[in-house]
């Protein structure tokens, strides 16, 4: 029996472990090795150069420029996305006019709203990029946004959007927020549904308004979920590769205004064949991501409330 058990365990684990080890674990380990070389991709032509790649990275203005944009995204995108997500979820679940004898209800049609809001989550980032490329089209009559502004008489607000250095990055961030709010609406709705109704009813009897209910009851009880969502959104903000690659002017332009580290890494590796240097960028990304996750967990930690 025991013998059969171990044979069964080994048999069931062998294949998944092998696939995972070859295609995930081994590249992970190799990334650290490659980052220590000046490899250009030729077999056996890698030379060990120690920490030179990291040194080059620290002194590269291009890299800092790209990293700066990722950090701006890392700070702004999660805040706005989660705030909107919480707001909509609260409206959908608790903000409704009461009916059917229930004290706390969602607005009418909350299922429909959730269905629509969640939509961008299921479609490919390529398609989202192409759609927004057309929305941001700088031509006053071709662009969806510009022609809409023109039609309502707001010609003065028309802009080159992605072609305008000062707002190009904000335009990219807006798309990330647009695409991800629905995820958090659904996530927070599910979490809110697990908050017992009688807590709300008690607060209501004590005369709490909606703002009070939100900040004193909903938010503290959802804090765990908010924290996890924050980390998720931060990881998405560290990416932005497809959006920038497909939408931005000259890939990362105008004049480097929308450049991000993943795009730098991709170009360095697969256009310039500097695989060692690009690997060092990858490790820098790992460090920033882990730092972000640790800081979030560290500073957002609160007393956990059981209910």
């Amino acid at each position, binding site marked *: 029996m025991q013998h059969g058990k171990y044979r069964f365990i080994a048999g069931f684990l062998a294949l998944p472990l092998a696939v*995972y080890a070859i295609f995930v674990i081994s590249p992970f380990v190799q990334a650290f090795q490659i980052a220590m070389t000046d490899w250009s*991709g030729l077999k056996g032509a890698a030379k060990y150069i120690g920490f030179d790649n990291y040194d080059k990275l620290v002194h590269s203005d291009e890299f800092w420029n790209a990293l700066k944009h990722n950090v701006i995204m890392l700070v702004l995108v999660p805040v706005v996305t989660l705030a909107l997500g919480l707001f909509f979820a609260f409206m959908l679940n608790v903000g409704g006019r009461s009916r059917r004898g229930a004290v706390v209800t969602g*607005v009418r049609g909350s299922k429909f709203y959730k269905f629509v809001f969640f939509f961008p989550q299921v479609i490919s980032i390529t398609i989202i990029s192409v759609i927004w490329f057309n929305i941001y089209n700088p031509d006053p009559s071709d662009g969806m946004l510009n022609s809409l502004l023109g039609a309502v008489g707001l010609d003065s607000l028309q802009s080159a959007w992605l072609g305008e250095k000062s707002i190009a990055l904000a335009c990219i961030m807006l798309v990330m927020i647009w695409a991800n709010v629905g995820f958090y609406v659904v996530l927070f709705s599910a979490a809110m549904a697990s908050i017992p109704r009688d807590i709300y009813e008690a607060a209501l009897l004590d005369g709490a308004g909606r703002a009070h209910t939100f900040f004193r009851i909903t938010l503290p009880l959802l804090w765990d979920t908010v924290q996890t969502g924050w980390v998720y959104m931060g990881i998405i903000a560290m990416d932005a590769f497809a959006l920038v690659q497909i939408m931005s002017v000259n890939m990362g332009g105008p004049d480097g205004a929308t450049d991000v580290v993943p795009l730098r890494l991709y170009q360095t590796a697969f256009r310039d064949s500097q695989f060692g240097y690009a690997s060092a960028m990858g490790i820098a990304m790992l460090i920033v991501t882990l730092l972000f996750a640790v800081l979030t967990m560290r500073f957002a930690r609160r007393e956990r409330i059981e209910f």
Partner: protein
Amino acid sequence: MTTEAGAVPAKETAAAERRGGRERWRRRPEGAVLNVFSHGILIVWALMVGLPLIWVLWSSFKSSGDILGSPWSLPRSFHFENWAHAWERANIGRYFGNTIIVVGCSVIGTMVLGSMAGYVLARFSFPGNRFIYYLFVAGMSFPVFMLVIPLFFVLRDFPGVTLLATYPGLILVYIAFSLPFTVFFMTAFFRTLPTSVAEAAMIDGASHTRTFFQVMLPMAKPGLISIGIFNFLGQWNQYLLPMVLNQNEHHYVLTQGLAQIALQQGYDGDWGGLMAGMVIAMLPVLVVYFLFQRQVQAGLTAGALK
């Protein structure tokens, strides 16, 4: 007159009593204002999300000149040839086929391997169990960009056969990258299932393997559906991995093909074809989303909920 005047308040109190405490919301003036306000904002956001998507659909019937020149107009006549052009000339048909092959195989592979590993890790104690579990779970935190460079060479220099830009290569990579979350999810799921049924099957003489496939897997169906949808959507929409690992145009998947067509629009200007191609690429996920809305939402958010 007097009787009526007396009856009205009585009726009102009765109604208020019947409706119980819920009148409290409405009695506050902020309630009504907020309600209009909240509906207003919700509708604005719904339009912001919904309109661009509907726009793609209706643009796929317009001529390329109209898509550019008057982006908001409805189609003047239906240009069904956009769809044919997209399918044949722009190769969307081939990309579609490639995507079906790759995603079909990798979703099945992920489910089989992921639930096998998850089952063993959830139900059997053996030395190294925790280590293997955390090895899988750690994979969720690796940035894909960091892995993609070495991975390119793992596929290129694979002993015996190059896996770069081939179906099997892409399928294996998709499976490997989906395993961390799948194993994490399925381990948690198998832990929630009762042990008694499996024990009964073993007493009746079923082997471990048979118990797994004929007893445990059918019991795990709800979990399998959630994680299956999660993997299907993730792999169907995958962009970076095929971009790097699948640079042979004959093996392009839909996301790559669309990105290429989009980047070429400066020269070609076949916007109608591009819009039709995007609709074709969206159709399968739309069908899944319409049919399994609840499971899709539950599946995609499963990882972030405690």
